[in-house]
């Protein structure tokens, strides 16, 4: 039932108003807060007659030429209508009457009052009064039973009461309303209405529904509701025919139901959404007039009801068709009209009735366009109505048969308008400047960022802007008069940017106070084109950006040159700049059910202009909106939503957003909030202003900044594991900016970076230790994959020390993999190199004072020293290295075979030394890093233990003082590769030691390069119980092979057996003794990687000083590792 909503017009001054038609329907009569009753000849009547009835008029009723009003002098008076002569006072109350009504015949008036009473008065004889007492609060409304037996009233005490008028007694009472203490506090006026004519139903508005009570039984027989009706219903009114019920709500919606079918047939919305406080039907039933609490008068025209004849039904149908047509598409006017008038009456009904008439096609063809389809459906509603009223048949001249089918079928009315039950769109959030308080405040922060504060004052005396800098070194504070009415501001180290919206005369202006300019002109101003308003603005380094209502983004240089301009995909919400980055958030689409659908763009200017994030959705918490947007001081985008979740861009995970903090968690009370003003990544600080009981801080007293810590919302952060995981990932996340900064060419705090790396590795190691303790070896391996290679070696050692051989072996594989990876990456990725080399250098030089100083000095010396000296030292290094098996070393030896042989042959040196001395001699270039395997590990340990000792809080403080100074040691790729090789060996050694690997080295023998003699020696050494012969064999294998180089492995052993037997008994005994001692030694050493160190101790042949230093080194790690042992308590 489409109807036309006429524009609202001014009726009375603000306040409660009432409206009714006169009996003929010719006049609209209103009363209002100004105490006047106005008589309008129509909605367009610009000069209504008025009758002044008092200071205020609360209610009016009109019947039979008598106008009854309730006015502020606590009386109910009569005036003649339409002349407006006073006709006496009908009754008085102790306070004002709230509602007056006539009965159907006009012989009686009922009035409810704020003094809890209802009076029923004969119009002809005001002395005949009946008083109905029983309400316990002001009476909201009254209504007569059309048959005059009863009277219903609603009261603030929450009850709706039906009275027997003659007996003056309560018949029944329903406690269905909300209790209040006064009319002014009542949520709803609760105007009751009794069905005219049959008087069967009493309609009671209860919240968002209308209850129908049946006369006589007084049962609640049905409820009229509408899914779209979300606000309290204020007034209800029956159509004169009694078939339709109109309701007006607090939110301004007008709804008409068909009572028989209980379906909503009409919905309209007050154009401004004001509360509808009165509504009345035209006696013909075709119009509804209504008034709102703002004193305006409105009219719905073109309603069709049972009383209207065919013509009136047709007319509105036509009108409606036109109406919608106009709305959507002018061109289709004619066709649509045709449809509306001739065919469309049936088509929608057809699916209902299951009738496949040929009209279907006619309808469907034009219905392809969405707009027309909609128009048709709307039309059909109308026709359905008429159909249901059995008036449609004669209209359907051309398809009688359809009509006949339709009419009976239509009796149970089907929902005419497909009721929309899906999610409702949310109002898009308005554009705002991050770091500002709402614009309606007289004293507000226009901007609070890391540079300073811009405050705006807009009260009677003053309209000014104060700019203040946190750091007075930037600029002194400024005070500007705000004659242009700026509402937006941004502040940077270079300039203040201000903007005002356009007014009637003036265009929207952008003003920039470029205080850092070196010339004398420190200010520029730009007018935006007409009709374009500044919505958001921001400053970057050397540029300013403005987003406008024309979906445009305009870039300016900081000096005022217009630069790039581009279009935005949606209405801007806010934007921020930092350095060369610009972050824009805009509306992607309408959101639903309280959500906002925002998109984000991140652009980078500078040399290489590019878009880093192009229009991806911005994730917000459920039912929240954006409340702050900004960059961290290091340049990582982040934002805060209205539920207090802070999210930060994770550049290393494909530009995803990670929640890093929930400010609400730290709030004491529900109404407290934190107003974020800045975020720093290093140190990790969330700077915000605690607001007690509000979302925004007041300008006075001056709020103080507080610092909140970050916390990733990981699971189970109460456990130690969860805590460490959270710490680790937070550390990783908050140091993404290093790689970003270095990749975009900024200098970075290398100290901080290396420190971070160390912290992360330390955390990993702790987690590793914890997992080890909890017997989670798989987890250990997973952790090891996150470690750098150096730390993996440390982990291997930890694992082997805690007798987890399987783990150690797996770890060694990982270490190997990592080493290979580094090797592969090195030539390709130069960018990554500083990172790795940084770590290495740190670990290489960050030694504890005691052991480190000397070592590094020595290493420096080494480079300059002569070959012989080097050789000696290398040997020591070699011993340190404890590459147990010769297989690996000899592999490397081969290319330099000549030299190797010369040094090897004469040596009758202790075990293991044979093979080891050589590789280091030939690998002269590799020497600086040769010691990397061990010293590095010790260094890391040193650092770690030292930082461990300091309390967690002071850790960050503790490290820097002790932190390694990065010496400008040029990274030598060559060295690096070799060092990794060495580490490979080291790890292999570890793997060899695991029991599984002790079987004869068939695989090793297969390796073409490996000289056969070396491997068995290696393996026999690893077999735990060594016999004297084996020992002897190890010692003498070289000489055997030297003598008979063409021997097979088995032959060598045979030969060796022979030779061994030839030895004297004493010698053999000494060898067995030695073997015993060795095995005993090996038993405890085998868990250590540093068997070489053990061997050294055994031999005791090396210089004393070197030895001591080595002992320290080889023993220290164990004690240090014990610090890592996880204590379960």
């Amino acid at each position, binding site marked *: 039932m489409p109807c036309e909503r006429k524009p609202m017009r001014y009726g009375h001054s603000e306040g409660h108003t009432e409206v009714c038609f006169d009996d003929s329907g010719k006049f609209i009569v209103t009363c209002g807060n100004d105490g006047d009753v106005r008589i309008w000849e129509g909605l367009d009547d610009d000069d209504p007659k008025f009758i002044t009835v008092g200071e205020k008029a609360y209610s009016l009723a009109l019947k039979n030429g008598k106008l009854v009003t309730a006015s502020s002098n606590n009386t109910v008076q009569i005036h003649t209508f339409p002349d407006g002569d006073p006709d006496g006072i009908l009754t008085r109350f102790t306070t004002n009457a709230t509602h007056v009504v006539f009965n159907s015949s006009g012989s009686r008036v009922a009035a409810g009052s704020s003094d809890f009473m209802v009076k029923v008065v004969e119009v002809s004889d005001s002395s005949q009064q009946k008083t109905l007492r029983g309400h316990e609060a002001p009476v909201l409304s009254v209504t007569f039973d059309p048959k005059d037996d009863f009277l219903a009233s609603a009261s603030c005490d929450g009850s709706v009461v039906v009275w027997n008028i003659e007996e003056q007694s309560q018949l029944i009472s329903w406690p269905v309303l909300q209790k209040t203490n006064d009319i002014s506090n009542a949520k709803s006026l609760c105007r009751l209405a009794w069905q005219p004519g049959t008087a069967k139903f009493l309609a009671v508005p209860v919240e968002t529904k209308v209850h129908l009570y049946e006369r006589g039984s007084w049962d609640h027989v049905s409820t009229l509701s509408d899914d779209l009706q979300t606000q309290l219903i204020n007034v209800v009114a029956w159509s004169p025919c009694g078939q339709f019920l109109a309701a007006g709500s607090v939110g301004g919606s007008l709804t008409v139901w068909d009572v028989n079918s209980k379906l909503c047939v009409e919905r309209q919305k007050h154009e401004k959404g004001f509360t509808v406080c009165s509504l009345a039907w035209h006696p013909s039933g075709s119009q509804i007039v209504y008034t709102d609490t703002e004193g305006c008068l409105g009219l719905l025209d073109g309603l069709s009801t049972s009383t209207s004849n065919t013509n009136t039904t047709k007319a509105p149908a036509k009108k409606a068709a036109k109406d919608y047509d106009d709305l959507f598409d002018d061109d289709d006017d004619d066709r649509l009209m045709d449809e509306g008038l001739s065919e469309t009456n049936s088509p929608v009904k057809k699916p209902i009735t299951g009738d496949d008439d040929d009209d279907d096609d006619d309808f469907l063809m034009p219905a392809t366009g969405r707009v027309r389809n909609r128009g048709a459906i709307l039309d059909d509603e109308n026709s359905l109505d008429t159909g249901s009223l059995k008036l449609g048949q004669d209209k359907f001249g051309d398809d009688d048969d359809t009509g006949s089918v339709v009419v009976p079928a239509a009796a149970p009315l089907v929902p005419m308008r497909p009721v929309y039950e899906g999610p409702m769109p949310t109002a898009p959030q308005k554009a705002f400047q991050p770091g500002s308080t709402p614009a309606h405040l007289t004293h507000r922060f226009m901007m609070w960022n890391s540079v300073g504060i811009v405050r705006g004052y807009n009260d009677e005396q003053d309209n000014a802007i104060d700019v203040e*800098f*946190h750091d*007075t*070194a930037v600029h002194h504070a400024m005070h500007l008069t705000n004659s242009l009415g700026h509402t937006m501001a941004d502040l940077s180290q270079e300039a203040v940017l201000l903007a005002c919206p356009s007014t009637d005369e003036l265009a929207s202006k952008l003003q920039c106070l470029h205080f850092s300019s070196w010339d004398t002109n420190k200010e520029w101003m730009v007018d935006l084109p007409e009709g374009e308003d500044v919505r958001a603005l921001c400053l970057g380094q050397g540029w300013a950006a403005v987003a406008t209502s024309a979906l445009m983004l305009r870039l300016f240089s900081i000096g005022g040159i217009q630069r790039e301009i581009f279009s935005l995909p949606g209405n801007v919400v806010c934007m921020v700049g930092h350095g060369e980055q610009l972050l824009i958030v805009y509306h992607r689409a309408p959101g639903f059910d309280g959500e906002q659908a925002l998109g984000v763009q991140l652009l980078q200017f500078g040399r290489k202009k590019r878009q880093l994030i192009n229009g991806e959705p911005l994730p917000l918490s459920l039912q929240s909106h954006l409340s702050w947007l900004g960059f961290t001081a290091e340049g990582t985008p982040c934002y805060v939503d209205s539920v207090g979740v802070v999210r930060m861009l994770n550049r290393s995970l494909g530009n995803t957003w990670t929640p890093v903090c929930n400010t609400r968690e730290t709030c004491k009370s529900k109404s407290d909030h934190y107003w974020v003003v800045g975020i720093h990544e290093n140190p990790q600080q969330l700077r915000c202003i605690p607001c007690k009981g509000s979302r925004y801080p007041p300008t006075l*007293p001056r709020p103080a*900044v507080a610092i909140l810590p970050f916390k990733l919302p990981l699971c189970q952060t109460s456990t130690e594991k969860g805590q460490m995981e959270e710490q680790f990932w937070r550390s990783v996340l908050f140091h993404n900016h290093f790689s970003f900064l270095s990749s975009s060419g900024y200098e970075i705090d290398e100290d901080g970076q290396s420190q971070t790396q160390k912290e992360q590795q330390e955390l990993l190691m702790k987690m590793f230790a914890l997992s080890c303790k909890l017997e989670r070896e798989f987890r250990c391996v997973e952790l090891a994959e996150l470690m750098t290679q150096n730390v993996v070696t440390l982990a291997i050692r930890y694992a082997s020390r805690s007798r987890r051989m399987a783990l150690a072996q797996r770890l060694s594989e990982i270490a190997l993999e990592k080493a290979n990876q580094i090797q592969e990456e090195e030539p390709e990725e130069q960018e990554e190199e500083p990172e790795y080399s940084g770590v290495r250098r740190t670990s290489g030089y960050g030694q504890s004072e005691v052991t480190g100083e000397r070592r590094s000095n020595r290493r420096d010396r080494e480079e300059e020293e002569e070959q012989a000296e080097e050789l000696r030292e290398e040997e020591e290094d070699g011993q340190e290295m404890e590459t147990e098996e010769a297989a690996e070393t000899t592999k490397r030896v081969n290319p330099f075979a000549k030299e190797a042989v010369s040094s090897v042959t004469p040596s009758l040196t202790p075990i293991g030394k044979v093979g080891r001395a050589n590789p280091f001699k030939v690998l002269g270039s590799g020497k600086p890093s040769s010691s990397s395997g061990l010293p590095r590990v010790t260094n890391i340990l040193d650092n770690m233990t030292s930082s461990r000792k300091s309390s967690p809080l002071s850790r960050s403080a503790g490290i820097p003082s002790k932190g390694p100074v990065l010496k400008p040691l040029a990274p030598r790729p060559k060295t690096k590769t070799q060092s990794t090789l060495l580490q490979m060996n080291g790890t292999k050694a570890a793997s060899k030691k695991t029991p599984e690997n002790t079987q004869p080295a068939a695989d090793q023998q297969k390796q073409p390069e490996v000289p056969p003699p070396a491997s068995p020696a290696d393996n026999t050494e690893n077999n735990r119980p060594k016999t004297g012969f084996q020992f002897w064999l190890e010692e003498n294998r070289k000489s055997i092979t030297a003598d008979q180089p063409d021997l097979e492995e088995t032959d060598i052993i045979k030969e060796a057996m022979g030779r061994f037997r030839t030895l004297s008994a004493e010698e053999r005994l000494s060898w067995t003794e030695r073997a015993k001692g060795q095995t005993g030694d090996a038993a405890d050493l085998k868990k250590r990687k540093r068997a070489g160190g053990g061997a050294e101790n055994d031999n005791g042949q090396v210089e004393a000083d070197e030895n001591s230093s080595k002992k320290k080194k080889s023993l220290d790690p164990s004690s240090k590792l014990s610090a890592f042992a996880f204590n379960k308590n």
Partner: protein
Amino acid sequence: MDSSEVEFLAEKEMVKIIPNFSLDRIYLIGGDLGPFNPGLPVDVPVWLALNLKQRQKCRIVPPAWMDVEKLEEMRELERKEDTFTPVPSPYYMELTKLLLNYASDNIPKADEIRTLVKDIWDTRIAKLRLSADSFISQLEAHAKLDNLTLMEINTIRAFLLDSLNCMYKLRSNLQPGSSKGQFTDY
């Protein structure tokens, strides 16, 4: 002990300031201070706060107790109780004086605070005098007073000790000396 010395001690108390300059951590004998970030509150000793304030390098955030409502409450309590009530800070008087003298523009309702603190001080000093009076008049050997601040003790120390000494002298002169005196007189 001079009251200026007490004040000197009070200047070691920490107070929050909001610097308007940027400076790294500074390392002093008494401990490290800073780092100073513009706009970010940092705890510094009062002497430094005042120094910076006088050079207009910072804004002082008044201590939490330096608030009209809290002080009013305290004053009422102080008046109600016969004994000394605990004070918000052991140097409340000194801090109030120092901060209000040099940074009254950073402290909301400075005048009211000054009056309130003076009221509290007066009440306490009155109590102190009263107890000293009863101490002397009852010829007690010792007394215990809780919750006194250094400054309060200091104000009464000189006078009380001197007067006690005097009285002691007078008393000791009175008994044995009286005969002596009489001796010499005659």
